[in-house]
């Protein structure tokens, strides 16, 4: 009923606000640059520059045909690239495209509202891809900016600063209730399957060729974080297993296919056998960054029972690694308990033994020959392994992240000629030789060590901590870990990559990378501070699952009940409204009207009781005439009083004069009051 009679106004945005909206659009879209295809980016930038043109030259109107062409081009780009992008990214493309195109058709208020809501939706979709503290903070700021554009429409001013301050205040006032809702509002399980973010896989790949991990070692991206609830093992014991590679084709190591399949059939069997856990417990929480792969990180041997309590479903594999049922596409945390002293002696089937002994015929003949010689020289497997390590230690092998390129029989070439390589080279050679000498052996890829952050007591494991080592099967002892890298570069095992090694080829394309300046003490402290903050964010906010929520709420409020939740939310809501109400009352009281106006109002109120009301439109001087007619005795005082009032109200006076006038006015006010008392 109310809406109908509101007269429709012509919609127009002020130039400032139009620019603000455009800038807002650019910033929102810039967060998705990495996800959008080149074609889409080109079309979007065309749309945005078209909008900018119309703003620079308001007389310019984009022809409908141009807009139609842009629309067709965008749809075409989505259709063509749709197949390879997958559902989620296609939808994202469509969203961004619609968002930028809408800017060209801003004709009514509805369009404006739509564009603002679409902008916020784009911000939300950015969060599907990354949830780090940094990105979240940027999103928060951009959210305020988006709201500012909306607010500026309702209070047009010359500069955007005022609405910006207002909207920031409003959003900040909303934070407390949002936090309460976040903590207590029940978390639901997913209603339906959604397309997950498919991005280029990050971190270790499923196959390793000598030379691969060197690329990773150049990356200072975070791989995962670990918080130990028990004692932290020594640095050189932190072998984070990700995957085990037991298939070798002469060049590349990879996970054998049947080992993954087998696991599904007798997973109960594995759990049954793996319960013989001995030694001290190591309990820790892992917060893994999105890798878009299924591999998770753990220390061997994992207690399968400890995995059951997690939010995501994690399978323990017979090769002592763990695997998520879904690719990790967002920051994920899980709790693990490991028994590091347990022997990895899960029985080796004949089939597996064959796989772990397999060497392609005629591959790397010199190494094969040496392996066979070693078999004769050292009947004991452990001694044999030691012999190989001795060779590596005694000969002039050199550890470097920039080894020379290898070709042909790569391992032969490395071991007998170049002698320069890093962990994958050494682990490959070692595994190969052990296999050649008749010992089942395999390559394990993962990470080694981690950076300890004193502030929050967690370990951060970066991509440059990626590592590869070997395992050999010894009867009665099971799989033994052997790290040939220790023989050539013990420092890597004890403390991680040395500064010099990192400087060698590390981060040279990224000047802003804080890891580059580790040698500067204050930069390092700052970096650790930021890391600690980000960790807390990941732990408290990203890791706040329904289980954590349940535990927390039962701890605080006792038995979990729906009415309690409702009461908390209602209470918080009421409290927030009450506080805002009180603040508003106080604000109105603290800011009285300008003094002379209040005084004048007082006199008007008194006159009203005497039966003389000032018509709204009448200026003060005319009203004084009216007063004089009615109360002739007031003639002198009231005219002077009115003059003072008008001077204060409408003239630009210096502060001194103002004071003077005000004191005059006060005097007259007293006199008038006194005189008016005599009238009944």
């Amino acid at each position, binding site marked *: *009923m*109310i*809406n109908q*009679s*509101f*007269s429709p106004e012509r919609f127009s945005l002020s130039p400032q606000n139009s620019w603000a909206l455009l800038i807002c659009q650019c910033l929102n879209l810039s967060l998705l640059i990495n996800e959008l295809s080149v074609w889409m980016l080109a079309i979007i930038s065309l749309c945005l520059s078209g909008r900018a043109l119309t703003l620079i030259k308001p007389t310019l109107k984009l022809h409908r045909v141009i807009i139609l062409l842009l629309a067709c081009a965008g749809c075409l780009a989505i259709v063509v690239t749709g197949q390879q992008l997958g559902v989620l990214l296609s939808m994202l493309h469509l969203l961004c495209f619609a968002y930028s195109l809408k800017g060209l058709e801003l004709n009514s208020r509805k369009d404006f*509202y739509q564009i603002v*809501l679409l902008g*916020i*939706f784009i*911000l*939300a979709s950015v*969060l*599907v891809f990354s949830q780090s503290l940094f990105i*979240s903070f940027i*999103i928060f700021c951009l*959210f305020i900016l988006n*709201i500012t554009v*909306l607010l500026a429409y*309702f*209070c047009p001013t010359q500069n955007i600063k005022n609405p910006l301050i*207002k909207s920031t205040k*409003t*959003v900040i*006032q*909303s*934070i407390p209730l*949002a*936090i309460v*809702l*976040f903590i207590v*509002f029940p978390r*639901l*399980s*997913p*209603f*339906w*399957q*959604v397309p*997950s973010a498919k991005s280029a896989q990050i971190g270790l790949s499923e196959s390793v060729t000598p030379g691969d991990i060197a690329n990773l070692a150049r990356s200072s991206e975070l791989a995962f974080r670990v918080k130990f609830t028990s004692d932290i093992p020594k640095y050189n014991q932190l072998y984070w297993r990700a995957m085990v590679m037991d298939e070798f084709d002469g060049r590349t190591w990879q996970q054998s296919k049947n080992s993954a399949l087998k696991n599904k059939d007798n997973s109960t069997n594995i759990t049954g056998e793996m319960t013989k856990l001995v030694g001290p417990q190591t309990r820790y929480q892992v917060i893994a960054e999105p890798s878009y792969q299924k591999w998770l990180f753990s220390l061997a041997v994992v207690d399968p029972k400890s995995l059951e309590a997690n939010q995501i479903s994690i399978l323990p594999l017979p090769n002592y690694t763990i695997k998520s049922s879904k690719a990790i596409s*967002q920051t994920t945390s899980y709790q693990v308990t490991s028994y590091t002293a347990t022997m990895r002696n899960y029985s080796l089937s004949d089939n597996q033994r064959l796989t772990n002994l397999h060497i392609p015929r005629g591959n790397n003949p010199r190494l094969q020959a040496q392996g066979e010689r070693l078999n004769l020289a050292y009947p004991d497997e452990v001694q044999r392994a030691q012999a190989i390590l001795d060779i590596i230690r005694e000969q002039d092998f050199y550890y470097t992240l920039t080894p020379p390129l290898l070709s042909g029989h790569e391992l032969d070439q490395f071991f007998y000629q170049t002698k320069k390589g890093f962990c994958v080279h050494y682990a490959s050679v070692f595994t190969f030789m052990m296999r050649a000498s008749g010992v089942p052996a395999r390559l394990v890829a993962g990470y080694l060590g981690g950076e300890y952050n004193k502030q929050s007591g967690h370990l951060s494991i970066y991509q440059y901590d990626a590592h590869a080592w070997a395992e050999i099967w010894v009867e009665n002892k099971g799989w033994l870990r052997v790290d040939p890298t220790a023989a050539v570069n013990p420092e890597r095992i004890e403390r991680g990559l040395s500064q010099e090694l990192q400087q060698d080829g590390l981060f040279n394309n990224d000047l802003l990378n804080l890891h580059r300046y580790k040698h500067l003490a204050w930069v390092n402290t700052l970096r650790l501070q930021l890391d600690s903050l980000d960790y807390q964010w990941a732990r408290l*906010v*990203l890791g*706040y699952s329904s289980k954590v929520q349940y535990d927390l709420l039962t701890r605080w409020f006792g038995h979990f009940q729906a009415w309690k939740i409702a009461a908390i939310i209602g209470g918080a*809501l009421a409290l*927030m*409204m009450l506080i*805002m*109400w009180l603040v*508003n009352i106080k604000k*109105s009281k603290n*800011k009285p*009207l300008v003094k002379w106006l209040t005084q004048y*109002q007082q006199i008007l109120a008194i006159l009203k009781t005497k039966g003389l*009301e000032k*018509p*709204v*439109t009448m200026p003060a001087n005319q009203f004084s*005439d*009216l007063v004089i007619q009615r109360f002739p005795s007031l003639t002198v005082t009231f005219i002077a009083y009115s003059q003072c009032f008008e001077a204060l109200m409408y003239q630009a006076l210096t502060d001194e004069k103002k004071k003077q006038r005000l004191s005059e006015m006060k005097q007259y006010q007293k006199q008038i009051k006194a005189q008016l008392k005599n009238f009944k």
Partner: protein
Amino acid sequence: MATFVPPIKSSLSRFIKRRFNRWLKRRIPPASHHKLSNRNIFIMPSLLGFAYLTFVVLLFLLATNYQNNIIMLLSYLMASLFITTMMHSFFNLSGIELSADKNSAGYAKKNIFFAIKILSVNKRSDLHFCFDDQQAFHLSQCDQGEQTVYVSCHYENRGIYYPGRLKVWSEYSLGLFITWTRIDFGNQCSVYPQALPLRDSQRNFSGTIKENSFVEKYKSGVDDFFELKTHILGEPLSRIAWKQFARGQGRLTKHYHEQQGTSCWLKITDMPNNGLEKQLQYLCFLINEYNHAGQIFGLDLGQEKIMPAQGEHHFKQCLMALAIFPK
């Protein structure tokens, strides 16, 4: 514009409207001065508000399906912002003091303005004012202190009208809510007939031309300046001696030497016979002309007669007689 409305629906809506108005009358009784507070402010989510809420639910679903805590946090922040905005929308109107003149007058087919004085301690934004079915006035920024806005009424025909309640509304701060109030100042609007110029040829048509015919008198009397007297309230502003006023000699009125004895009568029967409304419109024009010229004149509408006089009061009285003349 007549559109077909099902009788049941129309009677129902009329019934609701009547009930609502009766309730309003009890809730916000007529007064010349209103202070807006929670007693008389209404607040409702706008269309955008509902769209926004749907959007928040959508974000919540997205967050739940992706198990994404940050999107969830964003949706909670937006939900919370909805409440904050509601409070701000309310604060934007609450505390405003409004007063208005009860009466206003003007001509048909022209805008008639009611002055509304706004007294506010704080800055306000995006205020709209309007009477039912009338044009709205938009005040995008209301500064601290006193401010007067003019809200227009527009009527096609002469008569006495009651514009009804003044609607004040605002969509500040994010357009998510419409905050509104309907306050009653008991406004009354006198609408005079539209002034219809009378051409000379038509004047000659008008009945018998007497000695004191208005055409003659219209010319004389204006010419001979007689004296300056102190201005008395109600005298036409057109006769104030502005030169003297500017010199600081006070407000004086120019008086002209006139033949006081021969006053003229404006008679409805003298007007060209084009129907009653037309005749009244001619009279309105003439009254304006005479008043402007400072002429003494009387009005003869048949049953009702206004004795010859001059001045603002007389002028208004004559126009009022035209406005309320039975149809």
